[in-house]
């Protein structure tokens, strides 16, 4: 979707505030929001891509006026409300009224193991790759209302395959309960002039990782 999260090339956000020694968390609630989000992720109640869609569908007024952990927290509420794991009244009162089960919970003694394992998205490849290193490809001009990881600023533009990453879970499918549908994934390099016009520096480039269904031959 062309949501608030898709900010590449947008203007008006001002200077970048980058203090030298910043703690990981600025408030205790950030620690808790972070940990609760990870722990709920471990219950397998939604996929990574579903959680990204929950964040990017926050209305722009909310998204841009929220700090990042506020975005996480709001999306977490939304995911749980959607799945009936939480009710609005429970959130309002703090009193538990339902206990719909989750598939699993993360135990303290499993944290290290679970983090070390992570969640690899590479899958065994079935079909052979349509593109190879050095191929020129065009990012499709597509505007789905559903989740996609092809940013708006790349659409319609021609780049070159600079790396073949293997076959990975396809977010456009996995974000909507339609399965992993793994697809070939490529790093595609675009010249800054192709993306932003002729007054950009000649040699500069932007690369992005694009699944095969995002690309077409030129």
């Amino acid at each position: 979707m062309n949501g608030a999260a898709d900010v590449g090339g947008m203007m008006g956000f001002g200077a970048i505030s980058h203090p030298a020694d910043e703690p990981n968390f600025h408030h205790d609630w950030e620690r808790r929001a972070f940990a609760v989000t990870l722990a709920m992720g471990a219950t397998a109640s939604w996929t990574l891509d579903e959680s990204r869609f929950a964040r990017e569908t926050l209305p722009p007024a909310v998204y841009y006026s929220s700090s990042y952990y506020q975005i996480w927290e709001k999306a977490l509420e939304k995911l749980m409300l959607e799945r009936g794991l939480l009710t609005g009244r429970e959130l309002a009162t703090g009193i538990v009224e339902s206990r719909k089960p989750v598939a699993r919970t993360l135990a303290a003694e499993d944290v290290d193991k679970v983090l070390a394992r992570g969640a690899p998205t590479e899958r065994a490849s079935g079909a052979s790759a349509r593109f190879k290193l050095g191929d020129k490809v065009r990012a499709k001009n597509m505007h789905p209302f559903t989740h996609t990881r092809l940013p708006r600023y790349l659409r319609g533009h021609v780049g070159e395959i600079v790396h073949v990453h293997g076959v990975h879970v396809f977010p456009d499918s996995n974000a909507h309960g339609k399965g992993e549908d793994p697809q070939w994934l490529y790093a595609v390099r675009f010249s800054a002039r192709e993306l932003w016009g002729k007054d950009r520096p000649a040699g500069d480039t932007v690369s992005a990782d694009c699944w095969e269904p995002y690309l077409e031959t030129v």
Partner: protein
Amino acid sequence: MAHSAEDDHHHHHENSELPETDLRVRTLESLLVEKGYVEPAALDRLIETYETKIGPRNGARVVAKAWSDAAYHDWLMEDATAAIASLGYTGRQGEHMMAVENTSNVHNMVVCTLCSCYPWSVLGLPPTWYKSPAYRSRAVIDPRGVLAEFGLDIPETTEVRVWDSTAEIRYLVIPRRPQGTDGLNEETLADLVTRDSMIGTGLPLLPGTIS
């Protein structure tokens, strides 16, 4: 363009919500604990891990080893996931790694325009600025302007290569080894490798600038 009035306004917005957010998060956590969805000790362990164990020192050791050991360097550039895993850095938000190397002609810089993808396993949690719409929006359209704000003046003859982390591949910038570091061991070299130098918004420290 003057931003102060609007920035104030923005901060006003954000901060006015903070007490509300604090209460909301505490309510949410207690509900989830009581429902049995999350275990308090697991939450503490998650926080402890990223506050004390996993941070940019991991990535600095990778870079220092690549600077010191040509075979490791080549392995890292060929298969970063395996080369980094060999040092014990694996897992969440580092499942699939790629190393991109700065040279005299190329400066690399990493961003995630769509959210905040970042190589946790080697750099820890991303700084606030990395997740900000200001950085995410500008890094791809005006990387040199961003780099100038971070104090980096990149010569016109150097190509700026921005990597937008749109998938689950995580990028680690291998900065150029500073001059005057011949003979330094890996631990000392790692002290020179800053977090920002591995994102591409900084350069390594020079020997002598650290105690």
